[in-house]
């Protein structure tokens, strides 16, 4: 359920709405609707929508709809919300002769259709109809499902007739109150006291959620719909990191955690089939990133489902802006799904218009959470929507993506990053050994160490060791990089190992580490630092790192001359 409380929404009514989009909504109900109206207006405010509401008096549906001179028509609504509550309907049902009850749904449907027609014969306005909450009176017990004279049978049939009816009546849109009831439950949605005393069939606890559904539909009327989902790959579309864990190591498929990712992929594919464009934005080598799509038997999404596939090492805000420009759609019509809070915050701060769900920590909860947000409301659907992904399938000019984004530096400064650099200590041996075993991508020589080897090295005078930690204003990343320096002779220090977690890539950590290596080399009286890159199938991303950091390429080695070496620019403090 959305987290905003009713009392918060109520306070929004006093706030200034200058500059907001405007919308006139009329509300007609056979129950008390004042609090509902408060919630809808208050929620509309959070979506920068200035709602003017005409809230008809209690139980005035016919008086308003059938009279051309009524306040409803002089109000000139953009939409009319019709709320006929189940509880009232049940009272009608009880006073219906048993012989007539099998016609109850049909008769009420005809009455509702009559109201729609009355309204639309006078003004061509959209009509929002609440579906009926399906509650049983337990008079028949479960047998209610088996007899057409039970209330449950008739109320379910009435909802079905409404669905049919609004397909024929193009101006009518259902807001599915019964869905809300089935998700959150009768005990949350309904409170007997409120109904008996105030004729309110909805609690103030559920009103914000109901208001959201109404405003979502109004936003769709205004064309504010989502058209594209950009997804991250590692730990979002599958469990694990393809560059480190490899094709056989990632989690996808029927088993365990993989199942959660499969279900998410199925859902994304359903979105694609209904016309939502899918794009990928991943920090990866393109070949590595595409491998699961082409070679993993359990992948649901295929490359042809993805309109634009961007996998490189640039920051994601830049990549997303390129995707948006290529598709030529509004940033506010894009949803970005990424498991990593850093990436989400980065993109959010540089592109405030984009929608970025704050995913739960547990991947098993991603899908339910995304469904709850109801991001993909629409006011229309046609066959041409289905093929949209293919229409948009375009090859991105990757060189264009290399343009750097001006304010990335400002973003990094704002992160308040602080790193530490320390020689290995016993507490860290297990983590250091584990990182050396696991890191494949940012790993210059891919030397694997076990814990006892790490211990030995850290006590050996021929070695200088450093481990790095990083924190920023969003959290602590812990131990993220390991450097092992070997004294080759009294002049030269050799970088036997440099590995780093890809989570902290491109934030100035590379620069910070190199500066630190040089500083330590100087303190210990060396003249040169020598680095080496040993190619593996997975570490191409660091092939050029030493040159980028100011080392000179000499044969198969990279050399930093400490007399002339210039410090690299970084915004990370120590």
């Amino acid at each position, binding site marked *: 359920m959305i987290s905003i409380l009713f009392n918060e929404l109520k306070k929004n009514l006093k706030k200034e709405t200058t500059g907001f989009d405007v919308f006139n909504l009329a509300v007609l109900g056979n129950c008390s609707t004042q*609090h509902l109206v408060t919630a809808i207006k208050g929620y509309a405010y959070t979506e920068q929508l200035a709602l003017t509401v005409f809230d008809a008096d209690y139980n005035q549906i016919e008086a308003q709809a059938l009279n051309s001179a009524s306040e409803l028509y002089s109000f000139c609504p953009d939409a009319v919300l019709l709320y006929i509550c189940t509880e009232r309907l049940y009272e009608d049902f009880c006073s219906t002769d048993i012989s007539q009850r099998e016609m109850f749904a049909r008769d009420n449907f005809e009455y509702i259709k009559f109201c729609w027609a009355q309204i639309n014969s006078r003004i061509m306005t959209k009509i929002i109809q609440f579906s009926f909450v399906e509650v049983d009176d337990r008079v028949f017990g479960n047998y209610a499902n088996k007899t057409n004279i039970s209330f449950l049978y008739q109320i379910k049939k009435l909802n079905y007739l409404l669905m049919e009816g609004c397909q024929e009546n193009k101006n009518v849109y259902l807001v599915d109150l019964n869905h809300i009831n089935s998700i959150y439950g009768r005990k949350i949605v309904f409170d007997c006291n*409120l109904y008996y005393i105030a004729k309110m069939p909805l609690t103030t606890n559920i009103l914000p959620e109901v208001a959201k559904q109404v405003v979502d539909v109004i936003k769709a009327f205004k064309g504010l719909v989502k058209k594209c989902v950009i997804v991250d790959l590692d730990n979002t579309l599958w469990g694990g990191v393809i560059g480190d864990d490899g094709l056989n190591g990632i989690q996808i498929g029927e088993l365990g955690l993989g199942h959660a990712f499969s279900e998410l992929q199925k859902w994304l594919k359903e979105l694609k089939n209904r016309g939502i464009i899918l794009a990928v934005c991943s920090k990866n080598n393109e070949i590595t990133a595409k491998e699961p799509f082409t070679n993993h038997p359990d992948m649901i999404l295929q490359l042809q489902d993805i309109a634009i596939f961007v996998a490189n090492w640039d920051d994601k805000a830049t990549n997303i802006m390129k995707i948006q420009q290529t598709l030529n759609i509004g940033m506010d019509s894009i949803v970005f799904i990424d498991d990593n809070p850093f990436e989400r915050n980065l993109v959010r701060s540089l592109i405030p218009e984009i929608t970025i769900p704050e995913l739960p920590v547990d991947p098993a909860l991603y899908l339910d959470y995304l469904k709850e947000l109801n991001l993909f409301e629409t006011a229309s659907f046609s066959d041409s929507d289905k093929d949209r992904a293919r229409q948009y399938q375009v090859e991105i000019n990757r060189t264009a993506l290399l343009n750097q984004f001006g304010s990335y530096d400002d973003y990094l400064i704002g992160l308040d990053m602080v790193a530490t650099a320390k020689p290995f200590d016993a507490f860290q041996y297990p983590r250091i050994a584990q990182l050396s075993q696991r890191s494949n991508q940012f790993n210059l020589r891919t030397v694997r160490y076990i814990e006892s080897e790490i211990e030995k090295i850290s006590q050996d005078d021929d070695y200088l060791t450093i481990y790095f930690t990083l924190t920023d204003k969003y959290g602590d990343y812990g131990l993220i990089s390991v450097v092992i320096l070997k004294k080759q002779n009294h002049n030269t220090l050799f970088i036997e190992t440099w590995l780093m977690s890809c989570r902290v890539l491109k934030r100035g950590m590379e620069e910070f580490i190199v500066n630190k290596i040089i500083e330590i080399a100087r303190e210990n009286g060396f003249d040169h630092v020598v680095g080496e890159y040993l190619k593996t199938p997975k570490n191409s991303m660091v092939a050029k790192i030493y040159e980028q950091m100011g080392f000179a390429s000499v044969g198969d080695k990279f050399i930093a001359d400490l007399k002339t070496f210039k410090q690299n620019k970084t915004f990370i403090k120590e």
Partner: protein
Amino acid sequence: MTREDVFQELNEVFQDVFDDETISVNDSTTSKDIEDWDSLEHINLVVSIEKRFKMKFTMGEITEMKNVGEMVNIILDRMVSK
């Protein structure tokens, strides 16, 4: 929780519901003393209090409470019986 504690928390609920930080309720406060306290806001107030103190009023109590003092008595009563 003492009667004073209940009053303090209850006052916060009143301030939130009526969006007025100057509100200060006592035993004899009634709906006449607070401008926006009509039958509609009474419902919202009752629900907010129920949520805050994790208790429920009966229908009779909701309609018949005469002043804030009675309200506090009911809240304290529910706490003892819990």
